């Protein structure tokens, strides 16, 4: 069996590697590979953690209080905990500049999905219309990946938008707030469906209730936001840990891939990397290289390679990302109740808005805010802090956020390009929202507000927050799959139409971006590309 070099240990890289290994290949994975801090008090619940940790402020707020959201600071209703900062820490060697776009990159083991919220929503057949492949091919990979990572969910009203696949485990128990919402939905269902095209159901989440593969099941510690210490919530670094035990797997961490060497016949020859600790350059011989470093990093690597090969780098068009709007709400039936920290903290319910064109489906994740930090919300109440706190303590259990996601299309004005200067090259990202976006958001948010109202919730006026592009970290589309061998596209098997032996297994190959979280599809698509690659080798 042949050898393959994979760049990046994120959601795409590790699942490509796993399938390739299972089918007999030798895999070398090149990665910067920053590691996570060790879990602290792994069996303590959220409340117990605050009691027993010697320095809870250091843990929750950071050594330099970087987790405190001061008034006037640009922030969200909840942010990334300081101990997850290793995931987003920049790397000097990866330089970028963006317009209309706030890009996030990761050089951590497991990549950006180390901070995901576990949403595992397969794309619907209609959403795969632009993908040059049979939907059942991806459907099989969804099942394979679900078997590996553990996906919980229920065949319910949302299955019309998110197909049921193999290895779907039962959903976790609902928290009280989500239960109240779902019961209310059951009573209002026919009106919500018919009048507003709104459907609700259990979320699909990569979290398991049972113990398997060294991971513990979810025991409702309530620490999901702060990294699950029991590893019940899946992250790609768990797969990487398992791969490290495989005899045909070689992990080269602490390396930054700089370019792919391409020969005169437009075929890959070597992968050039820099060892970060020493600054030493090395070249790895390879006839097949898989870029799975995420859309931005893979695209830059590709452009740097073309520039080194031919003297110039083209512009990659079609950068996509999901627009997200956070809609906070108060569920009146939950007022004055004690909030419930001992439960699964991410979304337990999801909401779908049917659109005339099924590709324009709008997807919402319902998160009942329980163990998120309190001070960012309390300070936003237009009262003195003492009064605001009194209201908050009586409304805490009633608070929720609907994270509304919108689809994106490939458009020529959204681009990635390369700029060279004395220090090397820099990735230039440019994003412009579509002209239809404001109207699309207005219409959808009107339906969302009405739906929440029928579910017994109120949306405080002026509190909906349109997140900047880039914040969802669902980047895709710069080297789309195409059945035709056009320049700057990839084959349905992920191979570049420009450079033979160069494969893309991440979001850069998506020709369309549905409104759903894409990470589960990244894994499934990488698994599918690996199968095709293995079949081609055979």
């Amino acid at each position, binding site marked *: 069996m042949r050898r393959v070099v994979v760049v990046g240990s994120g959601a795409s890289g590790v699942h490509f590697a796993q399938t390739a290994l299972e089918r007999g290949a030798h895999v070398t994975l090149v990665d910067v590979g920053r590691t996570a801090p060790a879990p602290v008090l792994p069996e303590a619940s959220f*409340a117990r953690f*605050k*009691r027993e940790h010697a320095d*809870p*402020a250091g*843990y*929750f*707020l950071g050594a*330099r*209080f970087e*987790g*405190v*959201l*001061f*008034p*006037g600071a640009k922030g969200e209703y909840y942010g990334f905990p300081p101990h997850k900062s290793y995931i987003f820490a920049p790397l000097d060697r990866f330089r970028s500049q963006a317009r209309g776009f706030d890009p996030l990159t990761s050089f951590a083991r497991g990549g950006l999905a180390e901070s995901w919220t576990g949403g595992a929503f397969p794309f619907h057949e209609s959403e795969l219309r632009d993908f040059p492949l049979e939907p059942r091919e991806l459907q099989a990979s969804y099942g394979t990946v679900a078997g590996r990572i553990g996906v919980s969910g229920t065949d319910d009203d949302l299955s019309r938008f998110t197909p049921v696949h193999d290895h779907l485990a039962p959903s976790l128990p609902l928290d009280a707030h989500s239960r109240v919402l779902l019961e209310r939905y059951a009573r209002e269902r026919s009106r919500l469906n018919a009048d507003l095209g709104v459907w609700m159901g259990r979320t699909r989440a990569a979290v398991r209730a049972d113990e398997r593969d060294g991971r513990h099941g979810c025991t409702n510690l309530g620490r999901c936001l702060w990294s699950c210490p029991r590893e019940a919530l899946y992250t790609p670094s768990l797969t990487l840990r398992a791969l490290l035990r495989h005899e045909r797997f070689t992990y080269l961490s602490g390396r930054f891939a700089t370019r792919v060497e391409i020969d005169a016949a437009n075929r890959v020859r070597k992968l050039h990397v820099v060892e970060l600790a020493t600054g030493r350059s090395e070249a790895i011989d390879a006839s097949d290289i898989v870029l799975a470093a995420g859309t931005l990093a893979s695209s830059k690597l590709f452009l740097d390679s073309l520039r080194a090969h031919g003297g110039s780098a083209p512009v990659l068009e079609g950068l996509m990302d999901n627009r997200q709007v956070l809609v906070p709400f108060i569920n009146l039936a939950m*007022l*004055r*109740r*004690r*909030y419930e920290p001992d439960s699964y903290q991410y979304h337990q319910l999801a909401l779908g808005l049917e659109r005339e064109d099924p590709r324009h489906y709008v997807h919402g994740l319902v998160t009942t805010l329980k163990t998120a*930090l*309190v*001070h960012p919300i*309390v*300070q936003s109440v*237009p*009262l*003195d*802090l*003492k*009064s605001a*706190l*009194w*209201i*908050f*303590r*009586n409304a*805490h*259990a009633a608070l929720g956020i609907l994270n509304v996601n919108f689809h994106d299309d490939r458009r020529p004005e959204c681009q990635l390009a390369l700029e060279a200067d004395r220090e090397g090259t820099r990735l230039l990202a440019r994003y412009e929202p579509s002209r239809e976006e404001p109207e699309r958001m207005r219409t959808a948010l009107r339906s969302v507000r009405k739906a929440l109202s029928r579910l017994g919730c109120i949306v405080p006026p002026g509190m909906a927050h349109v997140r900047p592009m880039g914040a969802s970290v669902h980047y895709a589309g710069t080297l789309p799959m195409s059945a035709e061998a056009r320049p700057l596209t990839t084959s349905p098997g992920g191979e570049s139409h420009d450079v033979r032996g160069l494969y893309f297994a991440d979001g850069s190959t998506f020709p369309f971006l549905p409104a759903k979280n894409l990470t589960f599809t990244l894994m499934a698509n990488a698994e599918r590309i690996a199968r095709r690659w293995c079949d081609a080798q055979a």
Partner: protein
Amino acid sequence: MAERVELERECDVLARYLGASAGDEYVRAQYRAAHDAGVVELPGTSSFERTVVAVARHVPVLSRPLDAHARVFAPSSLLRRKLVLLLAILEVRAPHDEELDTPTGSSVLAMFARMAWLGLVFLAALFLGSLLSLPIWLISLAGGAR
């Protein structure tokens, strides 16, 4: 040393204002550490803002009017920054997290009545805070900020 004592006193006064028992040694140490780290008082903080904090520290009963005034007219001012910082420290530290985040257990009707009352209290506090801002401004001009 005097500055440290003042900062601890301020921590206790503001903690009580927020509804927690006076800060324990850990809370005080964290409050001090944040000030030492330079994340609280930003460049450009005016002597008026410092005087507002000094008044709130020495006359605890005025904390609420000064906070209400700051919420409307200077939401990113020094007093608000200190209050938000302290809230962040208290909410991650037992038993203060419980003190600040337990429902009061009243009926829905009583709760809405209390909310209406809080609205009125806020307006009154805002009015008083606005009245206070003039003498505080004069004190700050005279170099009274400590």
